[in-house]
């Protein structure tokens, strides 16, 4: 799915073959989803820097175990930091406390700095664990696993449709953009650009709706009744229990470290 961001790269889970991801790829998808939630909740509950560094180390450990390309995964994580950097930079100035230094008469506080570091560590630890444990799954397995975890059927259908059609619609978008480019369209800050992009979005939506009518017709013709038929059977193995026990123990250890 990540190809939507980088034209060349295919999915984060390149070929979708679980065996590529070492020990992580062999784990039961349901267990991975449940454990990432447990880990996220435990991490968000942490409040001291050493414990949060521990949580981030656990995420890094998972990354190493997954054999994902480290540079690319960490870069993607850093892209998220780009979004929050302004908030983090403002924190020392907006939180009252012992002054660290002053910029143009605004004091920066130590408390604010620590709080900003806390947020950055939490956010990165959770998102990295999520990308490693769930992002390595084939998107369709994510849908199946969520269904097995008793997610509402309609929501899983919606998820599967979205996953299926993102690629189709992205190709359509690129085709339309190609057609615009060939006619000499160059985006800029002007009325013409905004009108063209608006029409582009409108056209995509109109085509999407017409496409969905054809899909519905094809599905009805095959007797679609709203049931999900899952091709994969999941079973929990010893390694799944070992993984769950280890990660839970680490979470408990981190929470204990936090309360010391």
């Amino acid at each position, binding site marked *: 799915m990540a190809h*939507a961001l980088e034209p060349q790269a295919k999915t984060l889970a390149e070929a979708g073959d679980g065996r590529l991801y070492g020990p992580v790829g062999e784990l039961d998808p349901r267990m991975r989803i449940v454990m*990432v939630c447990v880990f*996220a909740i435990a*991490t*968000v509950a942490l409040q001291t820097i050493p414990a949060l560094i521990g949580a981030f180390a656990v995420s890094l450990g998972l990354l190493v175990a997954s054999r994902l390309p480290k540079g690319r995964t960490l870069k993607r*994580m850093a892209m*998220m930091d780009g*979004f*929050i950097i302004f*908030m983090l930079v*403002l*924190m020392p*100035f*907006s939180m009252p406390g012992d002054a660290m230094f002053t910029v143009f008469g605004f004091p920066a506080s130590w408390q*604010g700095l620590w*709080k900003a570091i*806390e947020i950055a*560590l*939490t*956010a990165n630890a*959770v*998102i*990295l664990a*999520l*990308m490693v444990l*769930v*992002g390595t799954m084939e*998107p369709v397995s994510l849908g199946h696993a969520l269904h097995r975890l008793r997610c509402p059927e309609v*929501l899983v*259908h*919606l*998820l599967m*449709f*979205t*996953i299926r*059609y*993102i690629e*189709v*619609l992205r190709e359509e978008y690129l085709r339309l953009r190609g057609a615009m480019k060939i006619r000499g369209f160059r*985006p*800029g*800050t002007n009325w013409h650009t905004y009108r063209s*992009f*608006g*029409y582009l*979005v*409108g*056209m*995509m*939506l*109109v085509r*999407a*709706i*017409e*496409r*969905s*009518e054809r*899909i519905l017709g094809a599905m009805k013709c095959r007797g*679609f*009744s709203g049931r999900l038929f899952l091709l994969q059977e999941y079973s929990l193995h010893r390694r799944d229990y070992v993984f769950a026990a280890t990660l839970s123990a680490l979470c408990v250890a981190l929470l204990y470290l936090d309360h010391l």
Partner: protein
Amino acid sequence: MHIVDGALSNPVVIGGAVAAVGGIAMGLKSLDLDRIPTAGVLSASFFVASLIHVPIGPSSVHLILNGLAGLLLGWAAFPALFVGLLLQAVFFGFGGLTVLGINTVNIALPAVLAWMLFGGLIGRGSPVQGAIWGAAGGAFAIATTTALVAVSLALSGDEFIPAAKLVFFAHIPVMCIEALLTGFAVLLARRVKPELFLKDRTA
């Protein structure tokens, strides 16, 4: 616009999750068998549209288009936008996991409100009148989203108030662009497929 894990206080995160579950349940109830493919394909369209970068001055912004999503999907915008956020978090690493609920509410609630306020108006009158209401809906949805993001930050602690104000003012240009694009998209849809907004709006 994504809030990350660890930034918000627990009551805000839990409140957001509860509200998101409620909204998603409302949305799923409105999706009967015949509307599942439409909602799924539209959800994918909005996912793709959110990757479009529109230039503004020396910089560029990416589209959110939650107003347009609301106008087309009604309550179903809740699960559709939730799915988009879930996929972005899992596969791109945007946003976070425990904040998925509050992020969904911040984006999808304005979409539903825009549909309630402007949904009936865009199908009426001339296409240009419809487009103007569409633009109003697009601007309203972004304004409400930024306001909700600012409120969820401000509720989590006083130290976030400057960041919350910054978020709000930084999004005024985004608001204008979203309004223009939503307006033109509605204009085109009204011209090439007039029945799109005339269907019975039972969503």
